[in-house]
């Protein structure tokens, strides 16, 4: 007997090993043949504070977190601050139990560490009464004691996994294998002992009255468990990027870390520098000198990159920047996702924007679009930006290993060799006409690299003549500006005609209602659309990745085909809908927004409900913490 899906939540304090334990458990579920999807929730603290990771596992594709969850392993917060009377933060020790109860589904399982969480505290939160009301099955276990007895106290998460496996009737094989890969010696021995002891004790001590069991499944091909940050980093590696410069900031740090760890072995260069202005300026300098370079940050750090970004636009220096959004404004909520930097990324820096922006919707897209960003940037000599968020950055899902079996593309695009430079146009003094609008194809004027014979020119952030001299001549200005902007039109043409669309469609093609979203909200919308169709509604979905240049034709076709559309995004001011209305104003009256900005990503049920209340006009108020922004004129 197996269940349709398991959504296992492990909760504890920061420092309790939630991340590594969940990573291994997710892998074990993947190895058992299931598709998995993880969601990480954590505070901006090194130690303590309520944190959890949720793993959704099923014998089918899972692209989103689920609605609520059905198994809680609560370790308690072993780094909790000592609660003063009426402390602002309350009793933190029990939060990994108490804060998670609202989302636990009926019939769900609770395992908590009674070695850390006291009986009095449990009584205070009325667990017994709530369990009865919701038909929860509660298993208090002395995980701490068990760990202490066979090893060290920090190993109580292993005890928790053992209890989990017993209750779900899971084979321990994959879990043991993963432990053996990760550790050795006494540590491994103790952990294995704890795992088995917890497993046996659970089976001996309790009679199982719960229905939930681990789902069963199989994979035809080998799977790899990766996060969005992995995918972006690997996309960069396969695009031939070998230079990264940065400054730490959550959540962009993940990509920076992955590449810093891998580049030295690949002959690449990673530079951690004094600030984000320098970080972006270094990427521009490295690219100018002939390497494929990138930088990135999150909102606040990206703000500092505005000027180097504009410099890259004006000097036509190819560069890839990535922006990992988190809840703002200012420092905002550093570890919580939001999609509120869209306008920032599209328009920051003075002058007319001349950049490319992609917003991948899932892990495969993060890889593909990072590669695409490098291709476009180097072919067209333009900055390209990947905008994603804390959600996509940290979520893990399984991907077919063969997906990554590709060649590297280190090609520098429209860069000339010395042989080609000999044939290129020069002025009377032998200076290379690097910004030559006369012969530019698609707006692109090929470039040289310092050190090449016959290629010297001046790159400047000032408006400039074909050889790069500062120029304020009106005719030259218009010619250069038009040439640079022509590149965006050519890129749009290439994306429309020569490449596979980066937009994702789902649902019933003939449907009269649509849901539009962008970036990492894609998975939740996809699931909501399929659920609505199952519930008898006729709905289709579109997730847009090309933010600039905007995919006008594709979105027009979609909006023309529906009577109304719900625009789903994680921000408070409907920024993507604003972009839709800027690009396609005539559809304004069809667009209603569903907004969420409480620091948690959408659950599919919230979108289903948003649709039913707003588009299907069901007579009830939405219960979730989301906001509706009615269509223009409503």
């Amino acid at each position, binding site marked *: 007997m197996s269940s349709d899906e398991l959504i296992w939540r492990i909760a504890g304090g920061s420092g309790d090993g939630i991340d590594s334990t969940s990573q291994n458990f997710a892998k074990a579920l993947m190895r058992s043949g299931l598709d998995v999807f993880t969601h990480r929730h954590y505070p901006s603290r090194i130690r303590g504070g309520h944190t959890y990771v949720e793993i959704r596992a099923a014998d089918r594709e899972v692209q989103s977190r689920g609605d609520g969850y059905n198994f809680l392993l609560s370790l308690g917060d072993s780094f909790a601050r000592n609660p003063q009377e009426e402390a602002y933060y309350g009793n933190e020790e029990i939060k990994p139990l108490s804060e998670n109860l609202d989302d636990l589904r009926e019939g769900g399982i609770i395992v908590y560490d009674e070695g850390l969480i006291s009986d009095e505290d449990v009584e205070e939160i009325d667990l017994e009464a709530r369990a009865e009301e919701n038909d929860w099955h509660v298993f208090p276990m002395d995980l701490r004691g068990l760990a202490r007895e066979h090893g060290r106290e920090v190993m109580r998460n292993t005890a928790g996994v053992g209890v989990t496996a017993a209750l779900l009737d899971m084979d321990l094989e994959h879990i043991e294998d993963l432990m053996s890969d990760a550790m050795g010696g006494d540590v491994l021995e103790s952990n294995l002992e704890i795992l088995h002891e917890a497993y046996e004790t659970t089976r001996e001590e309790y009679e199982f009255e719960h229905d939930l069991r681990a789902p069963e499944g199989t994979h035809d091909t*080998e799977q*790899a*468990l990766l996060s969005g940050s*992995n995918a972006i*980093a*690997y996309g960069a*590696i*396969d695009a031939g990027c*070998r*230079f990264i410069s940065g400054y730490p900031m959550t959540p962009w740090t993940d990509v920076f870390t992955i590449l810093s760890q891998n*580049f030295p*072995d*690949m*002959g*690449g*260069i*990673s530079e951690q520098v*004094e600030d984000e*202005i*320098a*970080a972006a*300026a*270094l990427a*521009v*300098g*490295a690219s*100018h*000198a*002939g*390497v494929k*370079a990138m930088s990135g940050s999150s909102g606040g750090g990206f703000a500092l990159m505005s000027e*180097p970004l*504009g*410099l890259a636009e004006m000097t036509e220096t190819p560069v890839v920047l990535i922006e990992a959004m988190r809840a703002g404004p200012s420092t905002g909520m550093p570890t919580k996702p939001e999609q509120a930097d869209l306008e920032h990324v599209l328009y920051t820096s003075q002058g007319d924007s001349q950049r490319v922006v992609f917003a991948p919707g899932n892990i495969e897209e993060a890889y593909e679009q990072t590669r695409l960003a490098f291709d476009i940037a180097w072919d067209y000599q333009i900055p390209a930006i990947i905008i994603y968020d804390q959600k996509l950055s940290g979520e893990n899902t399984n991907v077919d*290993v063969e997906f990554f079996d*590709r060649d*590297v593309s*280190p090609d*520098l695009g429209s860069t000339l*060799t*010395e042989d080609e430079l000999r044939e290129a146009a020069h*002025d*009377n*003094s*032998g*200076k290379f006409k690097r910004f030559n609008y006369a012969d530019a194809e698609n707006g692109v004027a090929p470039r040289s690299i*310092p*050190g*090449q*014979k*016959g290629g*010297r020119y*001046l*790159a*400047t*952030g*000032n408006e400039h003549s074909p*050889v*790069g001299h*500062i120029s304020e001549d009106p005719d030259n200005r218009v010619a250069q500006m038009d040439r640079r902007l022509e590149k965006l039109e050519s890129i749009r043409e290439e994306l429309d005609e020569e490449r596979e669309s980066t937009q994702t469609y789902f649902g019933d093609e003939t449907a009269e209602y649509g849901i539009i979203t962008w970036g990492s909200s894609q998975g939740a919308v996809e699931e909501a659309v399929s659920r609505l169709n199952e519930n008898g509604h006729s709905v289709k979905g579109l997730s847009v990745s090309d933010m600039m240049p905007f995919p006008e034709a594709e979105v027009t076709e979609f909006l023309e085909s529906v009577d109304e559309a719900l625009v789903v995004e994680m921000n408070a001011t409907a920024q993507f809908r604003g972009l839709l209305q800027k690009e396609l104003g005539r559809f304004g009256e069809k667009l209603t927004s569903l907004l969420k900005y409480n620091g948690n990503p959408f659950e599919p049920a919230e979108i289903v409900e948003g649709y039913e209340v707003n588009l299907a006009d069901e007579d009830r108020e939405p219960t979730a913490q989301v906001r509706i922004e009615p269509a223009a004129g409503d």
Partner: protein
Amino acid sequence: MSAFNAIGEDREIDRDEFTPGVEPQPTWCPGCGDFGVLKSLKQALPEVGKTPEEVLTVTGIGCSGKLNSYLDTYGFHTIHGRSLPVARAAKLANTDLEVIAAGGDGDGYGIGGNHFVHTARENHDMTYIVFNNEIFGLTKGQTSPTSPKGHKSKTQPSGSAKTPIRPLSQSLTSGASYIARTAAVNPNQAKEIIAEAIEHDGFAHVDFLTQCPTWNKDARQYVPYIDVQESDDYDFDVTDRQEAAEMMHETEDVLNEGTVLTGRYYVDEDRPSYQEEKAAVGELPDQPLAERYFDEDAEWERSYDLLERHT
């Protein structure tokens, strides 16, 4: 085979090669000290055997930022205060390039101060010339980080309440391994110092006094200048950090009283450059990274080979 054949070319080099054939008229005012920097570079570069196309001159914003408009090398005229991070990366990307960064005192010691401190700290192998005219020239004469206390300008109508920055002392504290001050009024010394700075392995910082006759002082106010190496009144060891620090401090103090001291202040030939340090920890490839992109036989590692840790 290199993709960059201008680098290391062994031939006679004429200083006129550094003058653009289609020369834009300099926007510098008559009598401007900036001409002195341009001239010293045109003299020094052929002397140290550098051709125009193996040199990348990276500048900031201001009158000084126009340097590479009039010096015919590869050039990158960047944004205000950011010449150093751009220059640094170009050198890391292609360690065979000769990289020279330049900017004004507002550019380097004000808005770009953070980059100055860190580039010196890391001891990147490059030359950094600061056109120090003790004023913001291009924006019409505002008080700058090196303007003396009491300096009156349109934005400091009652006279500046701030003591000026100490560029030489700051450079030393930060970690630069070659530090000198020269002046446009002393072309021979300027040329020699620029040549030494280019040849130095590590971060060579030259504080270059460039009079601004329009908004500040004319050339006469930097005369007489004293070369601290040649004058009998000064005796210190340029390789001794303590002695260098004292000499710098005095030099910075007396400039505002009208005594112009110039010369080499600190030379540390032993400190490895950042490029050497980074290579030593295995984080800088032996072959310049830029070469690899032109090498058709280069092997490129794939992400596919990293997947084992994810299965």
